[in-house]
């Protein structure tokens, strides 16, 4: 009797819950999340909008973009973290990265999640999305979608598109009070981010640009504090640095 009742309840819940679950597709688990004790960058799928990615040519282009993206992120990360291929994981919308999602990623020591989208099967243009996990608490929502007139070329030419990698590692080190380790990463990240902002100013809307500039401002404040804290350690290389005219420490050019 009890068992029958439990089964009935289970079935009812299952039907209701699966119904809710299929109503809206969401982010899935990362296929290869890697070990728990290292910092990680999740690289999601690169997709194409407005058409099917069925043809072999389009598939090859998407795969090239994914490969270049992963390689750039690996080069930018150095030994600070591991770049993981997340398979079919892909956000439907940047708003999928809400506080709960950021919290879950943070618990897994994921510092950055990247995904890409090509504007059409026959188009070169597209955009890359970045969810900056440690920046969510300082400059929310910390999700940036950066458009590019030629996505593949942008990735081939340089590391600017992966500017966020050193930045998030720097923020993470700062939050963990490893100030000396944070300074070079914050400086490298800020420098690359400035290049990205200047390069895309014509492509994005002012509100989005303002949000990125807000992040840069916060990171500058963080860099100044990190240098001050690092200087307190005897023999610190930052002891030689001198503050600028307004009394703040900035990264050397």
């Amino acid at each position, binding site marked *: 009797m009890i068992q029958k009742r439990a089964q009935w309840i*289970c079935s009812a819940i299952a039907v209701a*819950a699966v119904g809710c679950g299929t109503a809206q597709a969401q982010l899935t688990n990362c296929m290869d999340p890697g070990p728990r004790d290292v910092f990680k960058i999740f690289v999601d799928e690169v997709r194409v909008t407005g058409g099917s990615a069925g043809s072999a040519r389009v598939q090859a282009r998407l795969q090239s973009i994914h490969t270049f993206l992963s390689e750039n992120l690996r080069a930018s990360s150095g030994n600070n973290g591991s770049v993981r291929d997340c398979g079919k994981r892909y956000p439907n919308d940047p708003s999928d990265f809400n506080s709960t999602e950021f919290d879950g990623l943070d*618990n897994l020591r994921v510092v950055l999640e990247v995904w890409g989208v090509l504007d059409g099967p026959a188009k070169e243009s597209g955009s890359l999305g970045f969810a900056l996990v440690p920046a969510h608490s300082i400059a929310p929502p910390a999700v940036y979608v950066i458009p590019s007139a030629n996505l593949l070329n942008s990735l081939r030419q340089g590391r600017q598109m992966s500017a966020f990698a050193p930045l998030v590692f720097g923020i993470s080190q700062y939050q963990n009070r490893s100030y000396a380790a944070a300074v070079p990463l914050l400086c490298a990240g800020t420098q690359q981010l400035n290049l990205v902002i200047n390069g895309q100013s014509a492509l994005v809307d002012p509100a989005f640009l303002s949000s990125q500039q807000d992040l840069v401002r916060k990171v500058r404040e963080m860099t100044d504090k990190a240098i001050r804290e690092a200087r307190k350690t005897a023999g610190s290389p930052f002891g030689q640095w001198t503050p600028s005219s307004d009394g703040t420490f900035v990264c050397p050019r």
Partner: protein
Amino acid sequence: MAEGNTALPGAIKIEGPLQLESASVEARLKEVEGKLEKGNSKGTFAWILDVLKTLLPSIVLAILGFALKDSVDQALREREIQLAAVKEMETLVPDLQKTDLDRANAQAKAAQLAAYGRYSVPFFVNILEVGNQYAQAGAEDGLRMVARSEPDTVCATLRTVIQNRTGLYQWQTHLSALKILGQASCTKACRDVVRFRDTMSSVNNYQGWVSLAPIQTEYDKVSKQATETFAQLNSLKPGDCK
């Protein structure tokens, strides 16, 4: 003549009046009869007592046997239900661990598991430990669901999680346990929360308690949650926190 002087042997001389007091004899008789009557009524009680003495162990044994049989039967039935539930849950747990699982589906699977009530609690705690991102989120939801109907079981289990200092759990499991203890109003766990908060003291100290050494931000997160949980429980029943 000497023979004539010999005195008769055995002759007793009684002086005074021979008086029979009939009233005192009657009184004595009454007394004896009364005692006899009392003795008779005591004998009835004694007889009943004797019967009771003989029957009592049998009665007690019968009552005990009945009670024991009932509780043993109940325990066996409980165990059968538990085994059946575990068998059925075994098919659901792998679904919760799939890599292509999204948050909504994880919640759906957790709801199915939570329908098994207290039997699902150990499964959820294990998923908190070894599960992937959304499985862990689902396990937290599942524990919250069970806590709504069977709070005592969930509270007791999560209390043992935060009491552990031997590296049996990861810091993420401590974090989830603290969060749910507060949300489920587990006021009996308040002292454990206070002890946890007061003794974790530093990241270096806390690293010894858990299986995956946390970094500063992770330690801060657990410490903040312990403080928040304490505030929640203390506002409900301050007496349990002292």
